[in-house]
Structures are given as structure tokens and as C-alpha cells.
């Protein structure tokens, strides 16, 4: 386990370097002078020169990269041109909201998906199983932002049950209840597609496991069905489920950008979109970097979870 952990951690190095190169290059993809794009056509020559100096744009590309990385590892992501504040403060300010949304989405899709998948596998071709198949087809085809708007129209506008946007009520709000009320619609929107995918995968993994000989043995020795399904079945089906949950975590982090925009959820995704429209490159880079790093850490956690779930797994 220790050598697996060491190798897996070592593997982080090239990934982190790669991620940093891609995020750095975002600024340099644009045809033309980034300083001019950021400041617009009204900018004076002095302003442009100052920004170029500030961003180090006058130096060769690889020197710029090493300077940028040196700043990043010290926690300096530059200053937001639009907000006139350090990027790291702004991003961390919003990070919590994104984490709350993504984690609730992941929790909802994982628990819901596994429950639905197990129920479908225990009674294949039942009404529930067929309904779950149809829902999964719908889930894969529905634009997440549209689902968000539809849910908003139904539950906020027509029924008036839940707030339509934001994270807290503007007046007299606060507290867990307020947060939860605001969280329901975005979390359901975000989780919907992943839930159906996890459900289908759980179903097929469970069907395969439940046809194994040791399941028949477990039943033959008189175990109650629940124990057969959960202890002997689900536990062994967990590896592929964990894989797909890890992949879904990435989708959820990406989908959070769209969901946050629909519900004006004050997270990193919304900040990033605002940053792009304001041509605020340092802010966008900061947002992309933080979300990408989160994804890298989730993948690490998934791999460690494998080794914990199945001690036979070794690094090749």
C-alpha cells in the first residue's frame, strides 16, 4: 500500500506540470497582444506598457511560464483587473460555494444512483428498471442548463416552493435552512445526468456480480437476501462504481459552471464566466487552475479508494 501510494503521488508531478502549462497557455492562445485585449482599445500606451510589465509579457514565453509558476506556488495568482483585488482571495471566496454545490451534487447522484441501480438489478425488467432506463436516456440527452430553467419555472415560479437563485436570501436569511432551500434546485439539476449514469452502471455491475457462484453459495447457506445483496453483491460491485463516480465528479465540476450561471450560485464557475466576458485573464486562469486542481485531487482520492477497497490492486 505504501509503495502504491508513493507511486501514485509521484504520478501527480507530470499531471500538475501539464495542468499548469495548459492554464498558463490560456493567456497566450489569443491572437494579438493580451494586454490590449484586456484593457480594450481605449487604453493609453502607458497603461499597456504597465500591464505588460506587470504580467511579464515582454519576456520570452518559457521565462514567463517559470515566473508565473514561481508566483503560483507561493499562492500569488496575480491581480484581477476587473475586481482590482488579488485573484486568489476572490477565487477562494467563491470556492466554498462551488464545493458545497458539487459535493451535494456528487452525494445526491452517488447515493441516488446506487440505490436506483441496486433496485433495478434486484428486479431486472421490472417497472422501476424500465423507468430507470428511460430516465437515463433522458438524462444523457438533456442540457443541464435547460433542466435547471425548467425546474426553476416549475418549483419557483409556478409552485413557489423554492427560491430561484442565489445562495442566501437577501433579507433576514442565513443559517442552514436557508442554504438548503437555495441548494435543492441547483444540486438536483447538477446531479440528474450523473445519477442516471451511475444507476445504469451500478445495475450492470450488480447483475454481473449477482450471477456469480459465490452469491448462489451465500443464498444456499441461508443468508437473508438483504445481506446477500449488500454484503456480498454491492461490496464487490463497488470498484467499477467508484470509477464512474470519479469520472462523474469531473463532469459535475464542469457542469457546476453551467448550473451556477443558471441559478446565480456565487461559485468559481460563475466568477470564471464573468471573468471571460470581462477579458480578465488572471482571474480566468485562477478559476481554471483551482477547478482543475480539485479534479486532480478527486482522481487521486478515487485511486486511493481503489487500493483500499481492493487490496489486490497494485501499480503496474
Amino acid at each position, binding site marked *: 500500500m505504501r509503495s502504491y501510494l508513493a507511486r501514485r503521488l509521484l504520478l501527480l508531478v*507530470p*499531471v500538475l506540470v*501539464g*495542468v499548469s*502549462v*495548459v*492554464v498558463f*497557455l*490560456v*493567456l*497566450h*492562445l*489569443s*491572437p494579438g497582444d493580451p494586454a490590449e*485585449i484586456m484593457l480594450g482599445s481605449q487604453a493609453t500606451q502607458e497603461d499597456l506598457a504597465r500591464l505588460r510589465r506587470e504580467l511579464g509579457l515582454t519576456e520570452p514565453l518559457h521565462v514567463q511560464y517559470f515566473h508565473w509558476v514561481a508566483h503560483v506556488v507561493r499562492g500569488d495568482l496575480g491581480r484581477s483587473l476587473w475586481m482590482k483585488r488579488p485573484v486568489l482571495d476572490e477565487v477562494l471566496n467563491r470556492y466554498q460555494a462551488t464545493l458545497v454545490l458539487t459535493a451535494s451534487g456528487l452525494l445526491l447522484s452517488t447515493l441516488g444512483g446506487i440505490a436506483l441501480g441496486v433496485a433495478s438489478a434486484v428486479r431486472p*425488467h421490472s417497472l422501476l428498471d424500465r423507468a430507470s432506463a428511460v430516465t437515463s*436516456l*433522458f438524462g*444523457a*440527452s*438533456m*442540457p*443541464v*442548463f*435547460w433542466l435547471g*430553467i*425548467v425546474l*426553476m*419555472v416549475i418549483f419557483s*415560479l409556478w409552485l413557489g416552493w423554492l427560491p430561484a437563485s442565489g445562495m442566501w436570501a437577501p433579507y433576514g436569511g442565513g443559517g442552514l435552512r436557508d442554504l438548503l432551500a437555495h441548494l435543492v434546485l441547483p444540486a438536483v439539476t447538477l446531479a440528474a445526468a450523473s445519477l442516471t449514469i451511475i444507476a445504469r452502471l451500478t445495475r450492470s455491475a450488480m447483475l454481473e456480480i449477482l450471477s456469480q457462484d459465490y452469491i448462489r453459495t451465500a443464498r444456499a447457506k441461508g443468508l437473508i437476501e438483504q445481506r446477500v445483496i449488500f454484503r456480498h453483491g454491492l461490496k464487490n460491485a463497488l470498484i467499477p462504481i467508484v470509477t464512474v463516480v470519479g469520472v462523474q465528479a*469531473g*463532469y459535475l*465540476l*464542469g*457542469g457546476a*459552471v*453551467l448550473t451556477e*450561471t*443558471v441559478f446565480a450560485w456565487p461559485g468559481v464557475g460563475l466568477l*470564471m*464566466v464573468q*471573468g*471571460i*466576458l470581462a477579458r480578465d*485573464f488572471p482571474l*480566468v486562469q485562477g478559476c*481554471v487552475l483551482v*477547478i*482543475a486542481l480539485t*479534479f*486532480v485531487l478527486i*482522481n487521486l482520492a478515487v485511486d486511493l479508494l481503489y487500493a483500499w477497497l481492493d487490496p489486490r490492486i497494485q501499480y503496474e
Partner: protein
Amino acid sequence: MNRRWARNQLALLALIVLTGVVLAAALAPYLPLADPDTVDTVQRLKPPFTPGHLLGTDEFGRDLLSRLVWGARVSLLAGAATAAAAMLIGVLLGVLSGYYAGWPETVIMRPTDILMAFPYILLAIAIVAGLGPGLRNAMIAIAIVGFPIYTRLVRGIVLSVRGREFVEAARALGSTDRLILARHIVPQLLSPVIVAFSLDVGAKILATAGLSFLGLGTQPPTADWGSMLATGRQFVILSPHVVLLPGLAIFVIVLALNLVGDALRDLPDPRSYSS
């Protein structure tokens, strides 16, 4: 047997819907539709079934049916073109990295792995951030983000085929690499790549619509389904149809593509009988 028949019926229905939408989009200039960009503020936000406007009008009084049909041209073309570009790049790189081990593999696969270390839509958004908003840039971004899936898929197949007897035999008979690739390896890729592509077009339509929804894709007055949804959002309280209809269009077309793709995947591969 019954379920299979039902599924085939469903796939057939999906194919009919798909053909209908593609035909309507292709023939949009010749159809008796109102001009999609003509503003008529007197007629703004009319509900569906208003005389002269079957699906109602948007916030500028523009005919929604016409905008949906013209928007279909943008959305479908963007989806198909980005999927095709991703497929071509991905297949080429996958073949090269699978067939030639050693440095081509390292040069191709390491950057590909890095691209896959990002959440899909996040990377597309980041690339658009660099290139600047606009449909063309959004399409470039989505194609770049999309090719690694094909590279992985194709590389896996090439790796498994490379060592098979018929390839060894061709090599022993003195075939060149180019001949082996063209005659023996690329044909093996056809059916899995076609299936992946048919499922991918829907995903790409969703992705371009998503970028347009964020204001990073098509720019006004050109409309695709995603940007129609985005601009209609402000009027959702008064006129939900302005938002619901473009979303429904995306949903139906992607659903149809997924159904057809699923059916293609379940078709028995004629090659599998011969081998």
C-alpha cells in the same frame, strides 16, 4: 425479442425525427418561414399558436419557429463539424500512437492524458477564454477537448490488432506499414469509430449549446439553440415558451441521436462473424 423490436421501432422513430430536422435545417432558405432576424416589437413575446406565428415570438417579436429552424442549421452543423474534427484528429493520433510504439506514443499520449486531466467543459471554456468568444472559437475548443476520447479508443483497438496473426502474416509477406495500416488496421476501426461518432454528435451539440448559453459561442444576432435559451432566460416569467422551446429542440435532437447511436452499437458487427 419483444423488447428488441420495441427498441428498433424507437430507433426508427428517432431516425425519422432526425432526418426531418436535418432536412428542415438544410432547406430553411426555401421553406415558407418568416425572416428569422426581422424585428417586430408590436408582436413581441407572443405565445405559441398566435396567427402567423405558430410557435410564438421572442423578445424582439422575431418568429420563433423560423429562428428554431435557422438555429438548427448552426447547432447541427456545429455539433457534426466539431465531432468530425475531433474524430479525424483523434483517429489519426490514435493510429500513430498505437502502431508506432516508442517516441510517437510518448509525444502523443502524454499531452492527451494531460487534456483528459481537465473536466471536459471546463477545458473548452478555458480555451474559449483564450481565443475569445465566438462560434468558430467555441467549435475549435470543443474539437480540441473532444479528440482524446477517440485517441484512447482507437489506440486500444490498434494495440490489440497490431499483434494479430493476419497483421504478422501481411508483414511477413513484405507489406509496407502504410499498406498494413490501410488494408488491415483502419478497416477494423470503422464500426467502433462510427458508433462513437454517432453518440458524440449529440454530446457536441450539447457542448456548443452550453458555450453559447454562457455567452461564449454564437454572438447576436445569429442564433443557435443555446444562445436563444440564454437570451430568453430574462423573459422566463412572462413567456416560458421562449426558453422551453429551444431547450426542447436540443433535448429532442440529442435524444434522437443517442437512440440511433445506441441502435448502431447493438447491431451485430458483420466482421465479427468472419473472424
